[in-house]
């Protein structure tokens, strides 16, 4: 039996067992052996692979202190010298998924095969789409065992340097890469067969899924800022204290606008953030950090901008899907247009 291959598992502070949002600023740590959820991955690897180290970092830290964090992760991988790097599974945790995509990129730059796993809507899927092997997972960590089983399976194949087949066959998300291959029937026969299925309302599988990148022509720039009505929008989940309209903490399929006319600034007694994807303590003490009313009021007072729209628009961005975000954006645009808003600041957390 071949010697077990060596694996490094990257996880975030929570899955390393270090804590939740309060530890999101945790610097990168390189630990020996499997820690936290990596123990589960070890079980799935069985005797085929051994986890020689767990690298973990806080979700805020790895995304904000990028250079320092990536250097530390790279140094850790170099020191542990694994055959394969496994990142996650991140499920639908956005910052974690982004970090996992970077970890895979770091491994790739070092010539080490890597694989990660996350929910298909996780923004981490977008980071290096064509270069990263991403196994789709459930949205919540309830799918941990299934995800780790798949991660282990692909890790073994990578360690053995086996060539992977197409996404559908191997169980990873399609990357948009086409490879030359052999089909049994000529194209004309396949096309007609597909057409017959389609015309009979029967299921068929396209050979070329068209992924139209959503490119939007940017709006024309503002010419006269001094006459511009500026609106404040946020996905930071800021609402009146008590959350009277019950804005979800994320994901959210609704949004609300609230009056700020006559208010010089946002204060902790009137507002709070219900966003569940970050530690809201600081924003709750000073809501201007996500709805910068004090600053735009000053600018309006100085004549730098014409006026501030007398409502701010709010939703919670955590885990909110692209399609839902699109709907929310369209609806927000309608309110903004109806109220003659010329430009917006959109603060995202």
């Amino acid at each position, binding site marked *: 039996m071949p010697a077990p291959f060596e694996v490094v598992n990257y996880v975030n502070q929570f899955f390393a067992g270090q804590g939740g949002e309060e530890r999101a600023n945790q610097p990168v740590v390189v630990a020996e052996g499997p820690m936290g959820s990596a123990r589960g991955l070890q079980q799935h690897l069985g005797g085929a692979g051994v986890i020689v180290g767990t690298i973990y970092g806080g979700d805020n830290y790895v995304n904000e202190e990028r250079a320092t964090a990536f250097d530390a992760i790279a140094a850790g991988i170099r020191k542990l010298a694994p055959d394969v790097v496994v990142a996650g599974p991140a499920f639908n945790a956005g910052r974690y998924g982004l970090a996992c995509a970077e970890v895979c990129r770091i491994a790739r730059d070092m010539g080490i095969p890597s694989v990660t796993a996350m929910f298909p809507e996780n*923004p981490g899927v*977008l980071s290096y789409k064509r270069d990263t092997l991403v196994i789709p997972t459930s949205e919540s960590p309830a799918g941990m065992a299934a995800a780790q089983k798949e991660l282990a399976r692909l890790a073994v194949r990578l360690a053995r340097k086996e060539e992977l087949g197409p996404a559908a066959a191997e169980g990873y998300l399609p990357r948009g890469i086409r490879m030359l291959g052999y089909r049994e029937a000529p194209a004309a026969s396949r096309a007609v067969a597909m057409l017959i299925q389609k015309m009979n309302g029967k299921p068929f599988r396209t050979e070329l899924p068209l992924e139209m990148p959503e490119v939007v022509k940017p709006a024309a720039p503002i010419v006269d800022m001094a006459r511009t009505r500026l609106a404040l929008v946020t996905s930071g989940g800021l609402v009146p204290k008590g959350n009277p309209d019950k804005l979800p903490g994320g994901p959210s399929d609704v949004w609300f606008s609230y009056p700020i006319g006559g208010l010089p600034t946002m204060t902790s007694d009137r507002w709070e953030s219900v966003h569940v994807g970050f530690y809201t303590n*600081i924003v709750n003490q000073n809501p201007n*950090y*996500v709805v910068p009313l*004090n600053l735009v009021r000053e*600018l309006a007072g100085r004549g730098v901008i014409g006026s501030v729209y007398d409502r701010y628009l709010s939703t919670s961005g955590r885990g909110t899907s692209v399609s839902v975000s699109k709907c929310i954006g369209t609806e927000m645009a309608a309110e903004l247009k109806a109220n003659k808003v010329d430009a917006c600041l959109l603060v995202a957390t």
Partner: protein
Amino acid sequence: MAKEIERAGIPVAVISALYSLALTTGAPRVVRGARIEHVCGNPRLSAEKDRDYGMRIIMTALKSLQTNVTGPTLFDPEVEMAGMAV
């Protein structure tokens, strides 16, 4: 969200600490924010310096709104407001 508002003809300055992500999703005008937990300022600074820090971010955002962009573009306050008074 930002793209839909831009589509309606209203320029949007997306202010985010996760600026890479905002650029990847295709938002045309992206402004580098401070941190996830305090995007438009820094609570560790004095009130005056916090206001200056935040104002740099907002002024950068205004600059982005007045800039013609053809695709996702990053506006970094460290670059755009270097040496300028707020």
